[in-house]
């Protein structure tokens, strides 16, 4: 079992201090299987990368390494030239991660959920007002449900609460693992717009999705399992 890996936007070794995210020969092993072998890539301002691969090819594993959640990897992840193992906090302030799990408390309302998340992740001196938060909820179509406990919402609606963070985020790097899960077609279009907007403003994004996606400025990078067995045979 081994993994093919192609370098796009390569030359990661050129200038170690350059701005943006640099992956330098990342290797990941899980359960005795080598999932990611010697992956290097660089993402600069305004760039988006879509990580592709069949189920079980290691996309989530890679994204968790990049976000700093997982420590079990070889190689380096550098943010603005600095190894995130040495300086985790510089990435933490500038990175937004939304994973398979939404990070939404079922007992709280969408507004409450947004509010605790903001206090943890957007620690600006000027607090974000409730109106602004309501606007973000409106952007994901949840304004009418702002005060409904989340466990009463549908699967897609719950996922939208997590995505409302994108409308308030000032983070430079977005790491989104399957953001379109459970979202309806109209919602996907609007999300794509939001991501494109983020890139246009000089942001960066790493996204995985199994659905079709069209956003300008995105390049693809595929993690493909060599003995292509991940697909339904």
């Amino acid at each position, binding site marked *: 079992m081994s993994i093919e890996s192609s370098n796009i936007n390569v030359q990661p070794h050129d200038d170690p201090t350059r701005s943006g995210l640099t992956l330098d020969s990342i290797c990941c092993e899980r359960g005795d299987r080598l999932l990611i072998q010697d992956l290097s890539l660089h993402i600069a301002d305004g760039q988006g990368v879509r990580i592709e691969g069949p189920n079980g090819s290691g996309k989530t594993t890679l994204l968790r390494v990049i976000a700093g959640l*997982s420590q079990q990897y070889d190689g380096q992840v550098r943010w603005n030239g600095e190894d995130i193992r040495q300086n985790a906090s510089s990435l933490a302030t500038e990175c937004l991660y939304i994973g398979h799990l939404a990070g939404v408390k079922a007992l709280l309302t969408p507004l409450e959920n947004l*509010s605790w998340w903001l206090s*943890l992740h957007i620690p600006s001196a000027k607090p974000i007002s409730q109106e602004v938060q309501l606007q973000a909820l409106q952007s994901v179509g949840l304004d009418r449900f702002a005060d409904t406990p989340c466990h009463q919402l549908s699967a897609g609606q719950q996922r939208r609460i997590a995505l409302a963070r994108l409308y308030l985020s000032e983070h430079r790097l977005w790491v989104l693992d399957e953001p379109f899960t459970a979202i309806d077609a109209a919602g996907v279009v609007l999300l794509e717009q939001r991501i494109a907007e983020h890139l246009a403003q000089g942001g960066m994004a790493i996204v995985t999705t199994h659905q079709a996606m069209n956003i300008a400025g995105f390049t693809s990078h595929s993690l493909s399992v060599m003995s292509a067995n991940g697909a339904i045979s």
Partner: protein
Amino acid sequence: MSTIHRDEHAPIFAAFNALLLRDLRVYFRYRGTWLNPLVFVLMVITLFTLGIGPDPSALSNHAAGIIWVVALLGIMLSLDALFRADYDDGSLEQLLLSPQPLYLSVLAKILAHWFITGLPIVLASPLYSLMLGIPFSAVPALAVGLLFGSGILSFIGAIGAALTVSLRSGGLLIALLTLPLYVPAIIFGSQFVESAIEGWPLMPTFSMLLGLLIGAMVLSPLAIIGGLRLSQDV
């Protein structure tokens, strides 16, 4: 505690407050949840009196010890949920990724948990003394002892909760890990109450309890943070 209060110059405490508020809201969302640990303690004491049978003196002799052990169990029973819910719904990931100091976040979560488990148990001290025949003069000491003790138990229990959060092996592993660590608190706690009942000097055990609390408060978050980070790599 009713509205989010953000100090203009202290976003760090804004995060602390937000997390404290969030957890308290979750705990209070269903009416009565916060009463559960207290009711549990009262019930177990009732059961003990039933199980031990018609011998009133036996209980009051050991009242301090019984109260302490039962309070510990009530707190430990509820500790499993401290981080597991966050782990299951992904908000633990968000917590760990926050640029805010984790130390404070962990403190906020433990404090919130203590508010709904430890505090009611402390406040009910007069009730226990009534049930177990402790002289009323010892109630303040009982309450103070439980105040410190429940705090110590919350911090220590949180270590066990953090180390086992990613293991789906049930809450009893927490018990196995933390009960040995509880022992000093139990010993000094029940000694403290006994001293109060018997009229012995309180300061020596009091300062031990205080020391244990401060030690637990300062050190346990370190172990807890280690355990929580670990949980993401399983």
